[in-house]
């Protein structure tokens, strides 16, 4: 895991601070260390995803919350399935 500070995160994602702060306030992004405004790769990938969904695909705020929740659910199922397959293989 790499610790990424807010300024650096802005550069990586091509956005200004306010955008990331808004994402965090909406609880779409939950930084690995919120007190210190430190992010990790997962947070960066999430910010990029949110930007794609909103800017490229025209998803609005309400729709975004639902999509993120469903994606988290879907990813969880994938992770559980992989874990289960590994257990079966052993």
């Amino acid at each position, binding site marked *: *895991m790499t610790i990424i500070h807010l300024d650096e995160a802005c550069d*990586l994602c091509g956005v200004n601070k306010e955008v990331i702060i808004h994402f965090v306030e909406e609880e779409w992004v*939950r930084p*690995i260390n919120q007190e210190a405004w430190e992010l*990790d*790769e*997962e947070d*960066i*990938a*999430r910010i*990029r*995803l949110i930007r*794609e969904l909103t800017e*490229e*695909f025209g998803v609005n705020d309400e729709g975004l919350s639902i999509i993120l*929740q469903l*994606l*988290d*659910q*879907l*990813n*969880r*199922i*994938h*992770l*559980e*399935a*992989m*874990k*289960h397959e590994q257990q*079966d293989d052993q």
Partner: protein
Amino acid sequence: MADPYEILGVSKSASQEEIKKSYRKLAKKYHPDLNPGNKEAEKKFKAASHAFDQIGTKEARAKFDRGEAELNFGGSDQNADESFYQSQRNGGRYAYSYGEDIGGSDFFENLFGMGGKRGKSRTDYPGEDITYKMEVEFREAALGAEKHITLPNGKTLQVKIPAGIETGKKLRFKGLGSPGTGSAAPGNALIEIEVKPLAGFKRVGKDIEVEVPISFIEAITGGDIKVPTLEGEVLLTVPEGVSTGSKLRVKGKGAGPSHDRGNEIVILKVVIPKNLDPGLKSAIENLKAQHNYNPRMQ
């Protein structure tokens, strides 16, 4: 190198708007987060993104059309390319935080039989329900019956038809559907009832309607007439002064079990014979001269 116009499915003369539209369509379809784990989709998404980088803006497109394309496809920083799905496979912080506050983890524990609840494996799926259709005689449906049905697998079922059953109702036989896999339970057999019609009788809920013809003389004077029921004919007293459409009730001759049985509703129909007896006709003519009435006047 692949042609970005071809990848995006647009012509060389397409407008910027068309290119954008086509790219968005592909990006939505192949987005790695909407196709988790699908390598083919990921490849197509990346190809579309790269194609869009090349011709998505006027400036980039002009450059590309002049043959100054950058050849760095796939060579960019790996981290920058990581999809959110990939980040969850590597970490999973977001995926695992899902449902924490709403007790959602039970669902995942049950889903794959995890969390100590061993014994059920992921190959345990309950069997499916199988629906069979069965035709039932009108009388059997109204009064109840026992029937046998042979299932396609050769098994014979004894089916008790409850009195008063109606078309579309399903009888359930637990465990007689498709077998489950592993240790899971089999599905159920469902027998869907179709009640065959019976000439002269009509079911209306628990009641049975029967149309019975009467002469105009019976309509005027009343009298006892025989009416059909599901259990043979019964004598019914018709009061004087009835008309076509008048309804009389024969109690307890409808459908349903004995303690909760409907009624038979007799609907009268006054029938005038086509060829009237000459004597009767002249008697009516005499009556008409003396006692006519106009039912269209109050």
